């Protein structure tokens, strides 16, 4: 079968490649692809085994798998260096917030023709994941790891404060009251925490409340809209918790609040399923609950990391890279990689598998994160200027939580400062 497709519209100055499927490759052809999976230790070994299995099923294919960089954060720098020296991989792990940039690099591979040829598997992914992988009219990757924000609380501390586990229909006022009650300066316990490092971790924690209040990050023309009343209200909520109640531990570099939660110094943290593995190791008595709601809306923000694909003007490489990622993210492999490794499955359909039942038994609260996927209704904007805008918003949030500015002024300034980045 031949999929007629060409990448003529493949972004600014991008090399155009005619995309063919793996079935079009003549038997006996050898194809080598490079895969930077961004994982270390157990996860890396697991992915290596999957690559060997794929190679066995596809004679002639060799997958050179490696982490690509010492930490996932550094993958982007490695990719930048790779682009500069023309030695970038065929597939790389990438944070969702990088995708827009990578998609407009002129090096990414547009897989939309292949997906459109057999769209069933693609349609199974959550809407937010599909949108994260889409840059303009091109699809440049497939979801790799799925996460969302919920509240994880230390049940021992809640009991000590005479508080029951929060219910799924709790509100932000309940959350504030809990934090106030749990806050115990004499015993150095903070009710909750917020990172004021000023990076994306600072920024994306604000989006759920912005959306719950009816706001948007960007307006329809792609200009900042987060400084609306909805945004100001969300930030003002946290300002009053931090400054008036003093129940929020303001984590300066964003690397401490997780450890402090683990040490029992923070009672509730808003975070994702990736911390469950550590909590299980610590044998902590914890609980997970969806984010507090506004008028019954418990919307959260989802974070999808991606397998991004890159174009080497080689149709065989492109076909194999796409086929491998498709295979890797298929339900059968997803339970063996993501679920076995403590991550959420990529699709809601995985909820019926025995592997998932085992996962929920292994990681208490994982079911809440799984159900919370339905609350991740909106993706973070996938525009190239998002990263620069995120830094401005992060700065504004830090200034407000530390009491240096009021919410409206800070957000207005951030909106103004990010306009120039978003125009391009």
């Amino acid at each position: 079968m031949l999929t007629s497709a060409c990448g003529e519209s493949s972004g600014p100055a991008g090399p155009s490649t005619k995309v063919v499927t793996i079935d079009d490759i003549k038997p006996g052809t050898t194809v080598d692809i490079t895969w930077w999976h961004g994982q270390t230790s157990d996860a890396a070994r697991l992915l290596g085994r999957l690559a060997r299995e794929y190679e066995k099923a596809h004679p002639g294919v060799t997958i050179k798998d490696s982490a690509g960089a010492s930490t996932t954060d550094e993958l982007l720098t490695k990719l930048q260096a790779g682009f500069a020296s023309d030695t970038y991989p065929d597939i790389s792990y990438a944070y969702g917030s990088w995708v827009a940039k990578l998609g407009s690099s002129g090096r990414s591979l547009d897989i939309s023709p292949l997906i459109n040829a057999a769209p069933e598997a693609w349609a199974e992914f959550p809407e937010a994941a599909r949108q994260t992988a889409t840059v303009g009219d091109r699809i440049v990757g497939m979801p790799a790891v799925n996460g969302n924000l919920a509240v994880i609380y230390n049940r021992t501390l809640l009991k000590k404060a005479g508080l029951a586990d929060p219910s799924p229909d709790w509100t932000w006022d309940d959350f504030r009251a809990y934090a106030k009650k749990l806050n115990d300066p004499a015993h150095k316990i903070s009710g909750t925490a917020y990172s004021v490092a000023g990076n994306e971790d600072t920024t994306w924690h604000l989006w759920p409340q912005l959306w719950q209040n009816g706001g948007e990050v960007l307006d329809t023309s792609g200009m900042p809209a987060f400084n609306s009343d909805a945004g100001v209200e969300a930030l003002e909520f946290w300002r009053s918790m931090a400054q008036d109640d003093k129940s929020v531990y303001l984590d300066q570099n964003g690397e401490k609040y997780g450890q402090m939660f683990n040490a029992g110094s923070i009672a509730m943290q808003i975070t994702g399923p990736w911390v469950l593995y550590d909590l299980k190791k610590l044998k902590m008595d914890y609980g997970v609950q969806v984010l507090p709601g506004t008028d019954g809306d418990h919307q959260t923000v989802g974070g999808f990391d991606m397998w991004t694909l890159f174009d080497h003007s080689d149709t065989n490489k492109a076909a194999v890279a796409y086929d491998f990622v498709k295979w890797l993210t298929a339900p059968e492999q997803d339970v063996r990689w993501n679920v076995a490794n403590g991550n959420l499955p990529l699709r809601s359909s995985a909820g019926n598998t025995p592997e998932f039942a085992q996962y929920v038994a292994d990681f208490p609260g994982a079911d809440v994160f799984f159900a919370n996927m339905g609350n991740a209704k909106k993706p973070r904007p996938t525009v190239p200027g998002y990263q620069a805008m995120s830094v401005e918003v992060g700065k504004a949030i830090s200034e407000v939580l530390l009491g240096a500015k009021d919410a409206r002024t800070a957000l207005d300034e951030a909106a103004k400062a990010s306009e120039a980045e978003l125009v391009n």
Partner: protein
Amino acid sequence: MAITFSTGDLAQATKTSRQGKEARPTLRSTLTGWAFCGPATLVILGLSVFPAGWAFVLSLQKNDLITPSVNVGFSNYQTLAQDPDMFAAAWHTLFYALMYVPTSVLGGLLLAIALNRPIRFQWFYRTCIFVPFVASAAATGILANFVFDEKFGAANNLLRLLHLPQQGFLTDTHQAMMVIVIISLWGSIGFCVLTYLAALQDISQDIVDAALVDGANKWQVFRHVTLPELGPVTVFTTVWQMIAAIQLFDLVFTTTKGQPLNSTVTLVFYLYRMAFMEFKAGYASAIAYVIFAITMVLTLFMVWYGKKTKVEAF
């Protein structure tokens, strides 16, 4: 009483006689010379000069190292000249340098003098002072994070025991940079101590004895013999520490990440933020060139100053 020792005449005499014997270099000796310094020259060209040239090209572009670049001429430099964040970063760096450089040089000198005396457990004290220097700045920063944590840190616990008011340390906009100065001093004073110790041990006992025979007291020996002998080392350590101060990054990165309220954003941290958080590699390269210019001017000034005062450090 004047104590003067003139070595200038002797040096002049040696130089003259050597010049007389110098022969025209043969092709063979030229090739031998290049064979020795060629590999190192290639390494320097490849790893320093080429990247520096490339960075200059980058600084004339709007470039995020991902999407295709656009040539913008000197507009990055023009923007830089009006960037309030850049001036704030320069001011923070200057403040840091003014606190850090004199303290580390003076402190290093005093500690070296103390450690140069025949005291018991001398090796132990020397090791104690040098160990933090060997530890990586990243490790030092992570450790300091916990020591100076506002709520849970050892520093505030100590203050509590002493019934002193609690401090914000790294979370207080007025204290954060000072705390970073203290952490850097702890981490790097070993370097100054080491260079001064070596220089002190290099001072010929003959000169000291001669001064004592001439009737100088301990202070006079220190003032007129030891200090002038330490001149070159002082110029060297000052330049070195100044360059280190201008390049401050790792401690900021591992402790405050520029916070609170950007009060600890230094020049290099600002560069990092532009290049790797906001994807403005062209603009960041322009910052790099400004930092290079500042370092160059300061170094040339110190070398000139050393020459003027007849203290040859380089």
